[in-house]
């Protein structure tokens, strides 16, 4: 039986062999691997890029105090970006499953329509959820737009849900029973993390503080974006720092959501505020890296 970490290593090796840079996780909280600059910003513009990285993705509302065998506040995504998507991208993807020991002739693989959309990022794509024996193991997306901008090269994004994939391979009913490394279960590594953050996210996070956090980061991002047009030495301008503010806002929003502090009506408005920041950064980034001003 392959351990969690071995499967991660094999997938990284597989994609490294296919020309991917192996990145490390981004060190700011994100709700999905897509939000990392390595995806969100790199897919913009005409420059080819290939990258793979594990990204712990935090979704505070999905936490279950480590009591639910399948739901996690933080799960590990393996994110692969192939820009532009090669014509045999589906075959390459299936090859990655074989590389971790799945004999696809003995399993049932289906590609079921599932288009991806992130209103907060002004991003969407066309694709599938990949089902293996009835389990969704990967989200496969051809990006079409990011930050409200039509993409020059259409990247393929493969997002593997590592816990599910490994639970499938190891035949465990609970993610907590996964063997992470020899002698160490997923529970050994992560149970405290899930429990304590569930308590924080649902019970103890201070709503007033979170609103302040949200607004501080929003203001900081707005300040930077306002300075961008007149800044002379464009290459020096800290757009990457501005983008970190977007991620901070997004995470604060998710925490507020899990605290039940956001009504359905407010929700739309706040998503629009974050999107405005994300779109602003994306368009400036495009200009910074290509010299082109987005229409």
């Amino acid at each position: 039986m392959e351990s969690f970490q071995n499967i991660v290593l094999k997938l990284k090796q597989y994609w490294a062999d296919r020309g991917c840079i192996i990145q490390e996780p981004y060190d700011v909280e994100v709700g999905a691997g897509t939000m990392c600059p390595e995806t969100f910003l790199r897919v913009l513009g005409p420059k080819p890029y290939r990258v793979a990285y594990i990204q712990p993705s935090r979704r505070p509302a999905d936490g279950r105090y480590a009591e639910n065998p399948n739901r996690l506040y933080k799960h590990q995504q393996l994110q692969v970006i192939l820009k532009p998507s090669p014509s045999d991208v589906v075959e390459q993807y299936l090859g990655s499953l074989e590389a971790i020991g799945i004999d696809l002739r003995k399993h049932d693989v289906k590609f079921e329509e599932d288009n991806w959309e992130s209103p907060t990022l002004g991003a969407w794509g066309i694709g599938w959820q990949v089902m293996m024996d009835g389990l969704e193991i990967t989200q496969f997306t051809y990006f079409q737009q990011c930050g409200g901008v039509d993409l020059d090269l259409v990247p393929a994004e493969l997002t593997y849900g590592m816990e599910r994939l490994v639970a499938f391979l190891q035949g465990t009913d609970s993610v907590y029973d996964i063997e992470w490394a020899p002698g160490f279960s997923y529970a050994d590594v992560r149970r405290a993390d899930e429990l304590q953050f569930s308590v924080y996210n649902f019970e103890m996070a201070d709503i007033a503080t979170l609103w302040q956090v949200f607004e501080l980061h929003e203001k900081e991002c707005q300040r930077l974006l306002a300075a961008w047009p007149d800044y002379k030495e464009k290459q020096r301008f800290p757009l990457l720092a501005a983008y970190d503010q977007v991620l901070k806002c997004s995470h604060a929003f998710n925490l507020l959501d899990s605290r039940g502090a956001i009504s359905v009506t407010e929700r739309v408005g706040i998503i629009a505020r974050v999107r405005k920041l994300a779109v602003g950064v994306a368009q400036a980034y495009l200009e910074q890296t290509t010299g082109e001003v987005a229409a």
Partner: protein
Amino acid sequence: MTLDFLLEIGTEEIPDWMIQPALRQLREAFGKLVEENKLGGRVAWVEATPRRIALKAQGLADRQSDSEELVMGPPAAAPAGAAAGFAKKQGVSPQSLERVTTPKGEYLAVRKKIAGRAARDILADALPGLILGIYFPKTMYWTGKGGPRFIRPIRWIVALLGSEVVPFELAGVSSGNTTSGHRRLGATSFAVTIDDYEDTLKKNFVLLRADDRRRRIQEGIQALIAERGLQVKPDADLLETLVFITEYPTPILGEFDASYLELPEEVLVTVMRHHQKYFSVEKTGGGLAPNFIAVMNTAGDPEGLVRQGNERVLRARFNDARFFWDVDQKKTLAARVPDLEHVTFQAKLGSYLAKTQRTMTLVGELGGNAAAVRAVELSKCDLTTELVKEFTELQGVVGGLYARAQGEPEEVARAIYEHYKPVSMEDSIPATATGRLVSLADKLDTLRGCFGIGLAPSGSSDPFALRRAAQGVVKILVEGNLELPLAQLAGGDAQLEEFFRDRIDYYFREVRGYPYDEVRAAMAAGFDNLPDLQRRLEALHIVRPTENFEPVAASFKRIKNILRQAGFPEGEVDERLIEAGPERDLYDAVARVSGENLPEIASLRPVVDRYFDKVLVNAPDARIRANRLAFLAQLLRKFSSIADFSEIVTNGL
């Protein structure tokens, strides 16, 4: 010489529900292409799997026949310079010009021979546009910005006319004679001919024909359950989905722990059907069995790995459902009412709490009892439960189940359970009287509210599903035999009343199948009371084929025309001015016959016919004329309470 033609567009996996509309378009577009280019032949079939859309045509001409075209020039009488100029422009010598006689005189003309083009060239030019012209609801680009758009990337194209490739390029793919098999069981690339195409695919684990895949699924299922005393819950939509999501479908039978059968059947079936695309299985004697049928896109599962995988997934899903059910029981529906304040119904219309309060008043006005009011009060509370957040399609159903589990009276629980019904025109209305009132009140509140703030549906845009809500209202009133005045239900909103009129017309025509003129005739006599409208319409429909009815209807139309020409005069009938004979006969007959008895009205035919035969309505004497018009107006009024017969379309009149 005629040739067969084969086209296969090889793609990545196309969403199942888009495939059949695409095939219909392909058939039509190709038919049009060969017709416009006079290539003859016919489309033999169109077929598809998730990874290929294919068409075969037979009997195409290998080239168009040569044709002639006559290009008209100047009149023969024109100066010589004009003739020379025309000849030069057409690239012929002046001597070769012909004289053609037309109705306008003699003209010069050039007879040009147009060589027919080869079918292969015509197809090569036209196919890229034809393929990209297939409409899909949501397309993508994949070769880069500005590149072609299609439903999913095109990866190969087979285009064969006879034994030759029809050469063209699309999205960087060159057409050829090689295709691809099942992703893992078949070869990645192999050549085909038109004749061996289907068989070669089959050897590579692709069943091209939807019928073959459907049969394989159905026969496979029968083989799995036949001797186990089980039967499958029929589900035609799910079957079609599975037919178009697979290239080589094989069903397998899975099991789950019988303890999950304690969960409501609705929850189990929803998980299996909507989330896992499984067929539910019942015991022959009735009741759900702890089994499911999954359909794989592969040839078999000899080691049981696929079955075990699916069983594990289902177990996790059922565990979730059970977990949510238990968590939800910690707070009753009644205790959740205040929480509805935080669930927005519509920005301007407020929260679900506000909606609930409005609907509670409304259901009372409609005649609902205390149970109906209680059902409304709790009807939206399940929106705050974990189970509905997870399985939104179970809203209402979950509320009903929880109400029952929490000791609410059965009448209340049942009404909550059914209050979204009917969800379509085919769906049944709530089974209980209380359920019907609750459903009506819920829908009417939505309709009144949305119309009140200017959200009436326009064109295809109907985000609040108001058409469905209004259709539901109509269906409940008619089939539930509820004599509630529609104008009052519309709350005095003229636009909403008009909206209802369209829904009523649609319901009786499309759902109930009445001819449009009968619907129109019956509605013209009023549609405020729908059960009454239903009875009148049915009476009209029964009398319609009888011998005398249509002629009488035609006479009524004639009467209406006469009155219209006279400007619909008003006036009382003076019996003393009625002449003995046909006029008196009709007068007496009208007085005798009930205005609500259609067979009797139809029986007036001979008297009416004789009247129009013998009596001059537009009599020279103004007093007599006015009296006759007044009489006809009275007659028409009397016989229009069931239907406006002049709306009936009659033959030859």
